[in-house]
């Protein structure tokens, strides 16, 4: 196999211990993996990608697995059916909603309630049948929530069940657009809902999650494999290129999946981020588009095609040290959290999503459209005396070794929302690189983003990143820079200037 990879290199030396070296590479076997170290890259210490040449394994070395208290127990309870559900236009970055229903109108589950003003083919459906109770607006009359008072039982808008294998890509696309399933399909670059007029060069599904306390994808899909397969078959028709599915190394999720490229991914967070996987599989160049779909969203799409009903059901992991009961709940998209977790004290922050990328919601708020996790952690509105002294307050985890917490990598920590310092000028270098497993210089990119220098941003790889890829930089950086917000703003600028 070695000779095959380095066919052009005739100076292969094989070592007794099972390794080999060529003029430009050194390699050895580690278990079943062939690990190749490229001399050209050795000083960079970045791309120690190990590749088993037979499958498409990706091994990520850089990153950080945050171990927090309150991992959801793998039991499923049915969430009580909320009286109110909501679709929040704020979940869809860049979408300006144009309402098609008025307050008081009654809707079926799957009926379109608004569409995107600037891309009118992208439509958003009601998750339940009921009455539009309120269109809640914020500053400048921006629509924040469309709240639907649910009927006791759903009546669905019927699209009729379909046999996907006989459908063309265009037919699938039209059906998903009409059925309100399109918002599940997002694009890179820019991390926004895909434009149906684009032709993506590939589609990526990351069927794994490495974020702290995030829902376990294998568990989410356990009983939905048929829908998942149908969904994969359908979305793979949307591209002329390949459809890539990444699963965690050791997971059996990939068994029996046909027609897609499987990648086994190993490594700490953000290895599960689809953006990191894209970067290692088929990076996005200027002008290119790839589409990404969440794993459970694929199953929802599959279910829609199999049954003809927009039945956006999810398993949501309620987790975190303050969760009344850390376990999985089955629920519809847009469920109200109050009925799920009851009243929690104001000293607890409720996050729809994971602690790194999620959105804070009120106790009376609704679960986000894309979220599989609800995290409850304590607020950190407290002073800590001399908390800045190194090796004090070791109960707060730190990636830097100025806290003794690095000695206990497997301990689960209770963390709060304190900033643990104040924002400062960017001083420390080399720390951002440790949590961004991409061939990108994060600090230089962030600085160009702050300066809004479009050409430099392009050069440094803005098309390859999404805010979530910078979440760990938010978390770890000494200067408390808001990296995700900076990247989001820069991407918005790129949408405006480059498109």
């Amino acid at each position, binding site marked *: 196999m070695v000779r095959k990879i380095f066919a052009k290199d005739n100076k292969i030396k094989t070592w007794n211990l099972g390794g080999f070296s060529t003029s430009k590479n050194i390699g050895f076997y580690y278990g079943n993996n062939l690990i190749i170290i490229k001399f050209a890259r050795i000083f960079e210490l970045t791309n120690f990608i190990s590749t088993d040449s037979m499958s498409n394994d990706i091994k990520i070395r850089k990153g950080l697995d945050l171990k927090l208290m309150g991992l959801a127990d793998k039991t499923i309870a049915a969430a009580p059916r909320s009286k109110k559900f909501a679709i929040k236009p704020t979940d869809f970055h860049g979408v300006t909603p144009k309402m098609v229903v008025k307050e008081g109108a009654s809707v079926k589950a799957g009926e379109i309630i608004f569409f995107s003003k600037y891309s009118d083919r992208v439509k958003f459906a009601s998750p339940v049948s009921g009455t539009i109770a309120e269109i809640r607006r914020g500053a400048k009359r921006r629509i924040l929530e469309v709240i639907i008072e649910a009927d006791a039982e759903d009546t669905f808008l019927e699209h009729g069940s379909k046999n996907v294998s006989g459908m063309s890509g265009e037919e699938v696309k039209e059906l998903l657009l009409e059925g309100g399933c399109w918002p599940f399909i997002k694009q890179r670059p820019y991390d926004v809902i895909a434009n149906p007029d684009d032709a993506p060069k590939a589609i990526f599904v990351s069927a794994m999650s490495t974020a702290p306390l995030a829902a376990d994808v294998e568990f989410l899909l356990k009983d939905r494999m048929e829908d998942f397969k149908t969904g994969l078959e359908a979305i793979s028709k949307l591209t002329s290129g390949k459809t890539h599915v990444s699963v965690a190394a050791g997971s059996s999720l990939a068994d029996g999946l046909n027609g897609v490229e499987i990648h086994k991914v190993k490594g700490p967070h953000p290895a599960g981020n689809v953006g990191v996987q894209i970067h290692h599989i088929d990076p996005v160049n200027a002008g290119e588009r790839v589409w990404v779909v969440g794993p459970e969203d694929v199953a929802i799409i599959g279910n829609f095609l199999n049954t003809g009903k927009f039945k956006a059901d999810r398993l949501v992991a309620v987790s975190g040290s303050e969760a009344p009961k850390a376990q999985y709940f089955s629920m519809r998209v847009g469920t109200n959290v109050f009925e799920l977790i009851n009243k929690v004290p104001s000293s607890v922050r409720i996050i729809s999503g994971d602690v790194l990328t999620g959105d804070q919601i009120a106790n009376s708020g609704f679960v986000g459209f894309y979220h599989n996790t609800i995290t409850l952690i304590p607020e950190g509105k407290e002073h800590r005396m001399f908390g800045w002294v*190194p090796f004090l307050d070791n109960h707060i985890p730190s990636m830097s070794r100025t806290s003794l917490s690095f000695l206990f990598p497997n301990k689960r920590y209770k963390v709060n929302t304190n900033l643990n310092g104040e924002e400062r000028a960017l001083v420390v270098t080399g720390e951002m*690189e440790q949590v961004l497993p991409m*061939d990108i*210089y994060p600090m230089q990119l962030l600085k160009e983003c702050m300066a809004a220098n479009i050409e430099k941003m392009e050069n440094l790889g803005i098309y390859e990143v999404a805010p979530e890829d910078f979440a760990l930089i*938010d978390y770890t950086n000494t200067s408390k820079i808001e990296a995700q917000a900076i990247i989001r703003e820069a991407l918005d600028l790129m949408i405006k200037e480059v498109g």
Partner: protein
Amino acid sequence: MSFLRKKLDELKRPFNKGQKWEKFAPAFNAFDTFLFVPDHTTRKGAHIRDAVDLKRTMITVIIALLPALFYGIYNTGYQYLSQTGEAFTFLDAFIHGAWKIVPMIVVSYAVGLGIEFIFAIYRGHEVNEGFLVTGMLVPMIMPVDIPLWMVAVSVAFAVLIGKEAFGGTGMNILNPALMARAFAFFAYPTYMSGNKVWVSEASNIDAVSGETILGSLAAGKEVTYNMWSMFSGAIPGSIGETSTLWIAAGALFLILTGVGSWRIMAGGVIGAAFMGFLFNLWGANALMSFPWYQHLVVGGLAFGIVFMATDPVSAAQTFKGKWIYGILIGVFSIMIRVFNPAYPEGVMLAILLMNVFAPTIDHYVIEANIKRRKKRLATVTAKSA
């Protein structure tokens, strides 16, 4: 603790937004946040944050400096007392040194922090912690007998021209502490070089010689110290620079905590050793034939590489760049030592020179990354065309 907190909140009231002393809030906050980590919570982005902050990082560097500082204080007394011939104890030497050095530290912090506070109030931002390290470094790289007013002027120059003129912490091109030393070196050369300044009172008492090893080598004299004295630091020199042993302890701490860049340190040692070795082979004069491993332990090389070259703001910022930057500092330090006997202390100039070139080094490292990206795009375009 909660009593103190309440008292502080009460005192803080006039500094709050819309109150009469609002403008001076940064000054108050600097003291407040020194006592307590503030109760600020995350508003956007990640909801949780690492325990590390700039204060913690800077204090870590100061902790790393302490062994060298304490040894420097002792050595100041030791150099003086051992030459006057009186019997003395460790404590005598330490007290003699402390009388000289503590006032320098006080002056350095008072002047530097004073200027930092004024700029923070004027610019309306919080006081950055960077000067905590600079303020400690400046006295440690000065000769012991330099008048306090010169320390004050040098620090003022370094902070005003070296840092604030560029926009403050994080924006400066040159290492501020080295700016202070370079300023003193060129403005008051008689206090900063020669054979009369490196031991306490050497310029007042004839019996005391204050010549450094590099100074005597440059003058073509024999070196009378053995390797252990050079390594442990019982030699004349700037206050903090003499003990490679204790500097190495600080370096180890910086590397273990991850605060100091091991790449720069390793690069510096490799570069200096390589250059020293080359000159050993050449061996045209006393400095050239001075063994390469002794080059590593005399003068300010070790201190410079560990504590000055690793300043993240003025150093190269990319991993590859750090290697190149470190190696070149080592190479140039020895080169300046050997070729220019007027400046036996090459490391200061080498670091300042490389500070200027650090952005250029990074530029080429990053340019390689950009080229990879453009090449990838070109292959894709070629394929589709």
